[in-house]
């Protein structure tokens, strides 16, 4: 009996200390990890989808609440000579193997896309992963807001052959970003200085 109690006590004590330690470390590293993830995962995509900016979009990011929903989105501003020229918003769509994250850049003045970049995905290597290649993503360069759909759905974007599901997921993600952008555009304009 005494042995059992001792086992329970020792194991509980060890677990308690371990839990406390992990909680502390997690708290202490939380904001730094968030920043590192942004720099290493979103950073490369951001550079490709935003054009003419001289600021640091990651450092100057702001969070916005989307109307009528509880979701928060992070908006990365592209600022050139003190004025906001465009923003990038990340959207997510269901892919073949989990969520596909797509960073979508928007031109504020012309209300068109400045490009997309895949940030995270778990698609099949050599098939679904082609959605991150230029052949697919270049189609979104300077693309207007309307008509954004795959050709099979009466849009004008060519899906990656053999990877319809992944292309659809990426497309969903783009459309979600576009919706968010249209919803919160007035707030974005209020948040940064921009050209009239």
């Amino acid at each position: 009996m005494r042995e059992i109690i001792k086992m329970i006590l020792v194991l509980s004590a060890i677990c308690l200390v371990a839990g406390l330690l992990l909680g502390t470390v997690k708290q202490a590293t939380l904001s730094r990890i968030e920043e590192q993830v942004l720099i290493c995962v979103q950073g490369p995509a951001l550079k490709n989808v935003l054009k003419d900016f001289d600021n640091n979009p990651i450092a100057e990011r702001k969070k916005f609440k989307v109307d009528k929903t509880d979701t928060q989105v992070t908006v990365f501003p592209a600022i050139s000579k003190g004025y906001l020229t465009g923003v990038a918003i990340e959207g997510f769509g269901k892919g073949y193997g989990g969520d596909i994250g797509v960073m979508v850049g928007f031109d504020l003045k012309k209300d068109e896309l400045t490009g997309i970049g895949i940030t995270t995905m778990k698609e099949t290597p050599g098939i679904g992963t082609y959605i991150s290649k230029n052949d697919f993503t270049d189609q979104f360069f300077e693309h207007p807001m309307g008509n954004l759909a795959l050709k099979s759905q009466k849009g004008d974007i060519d899906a990656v052959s053999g990877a319809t599901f992944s292309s659809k997921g990426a497309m969903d993600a783009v459309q979600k970003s576009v919706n968010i952008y249209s919803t919160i555009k007035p707030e974005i304009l209020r948040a940064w200085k921009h050209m009239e």
Partner: protein
Amino acid sequence: MNRMWKEFSKGLWLELPPFRLLLGLCPVLAVTKTAYNGFGMGCAVIFVLTLSNLIISLVRKIIPPKVRIVCFIVITASLVVTVELLMQAFTYPLYQELGIFVPLIVVNCLILGRAEAFASRNPVHLSVADALGMGFGFTLSLTFLGGIREIFGYGTFFGRPFMWAEFKPFTFMVEAPGAFICLAMCLAAMNFITTWQSKRF
């Protein structure tokens, strides 16, 4: 002091973990695509191994024998998650490269093996010496293996150009089969040196 040096130095040659004890081979084969990756993995292992040996040796007298393995795993798992978080916070690119192999340090037989075979039976200072020796041996082996594979597979060493300009890299060295062949060569070389030495003396 003599005893401590003995425990430390045995990890560097006599009981070199991956090449002698053949412990912890999973990361040895998987992450040694470049010298830097091998070095980073080795450092993570040094950190976890030293602290786990230290803690386990400290509490070895209060741990009931029947639940000792569970205790060891709880301790190493917490340390590994700590390393993982620290890596994410400070060396995120390395974390992306090592990926799943960082959390897998928990079940690295080297860590549990040293805890069970050494730290749970020896005083603190010897356990730390043992962990440091084993950890350094592990890091050296991984860096060595990663270095060889990087030099032949990419023509670079720690990311810097190493071979002459016309060198065509053998990409196969940085694929999975290259890891097995390299490891086998190292084992063969180690065995050759040992037999040669024993013949001489």
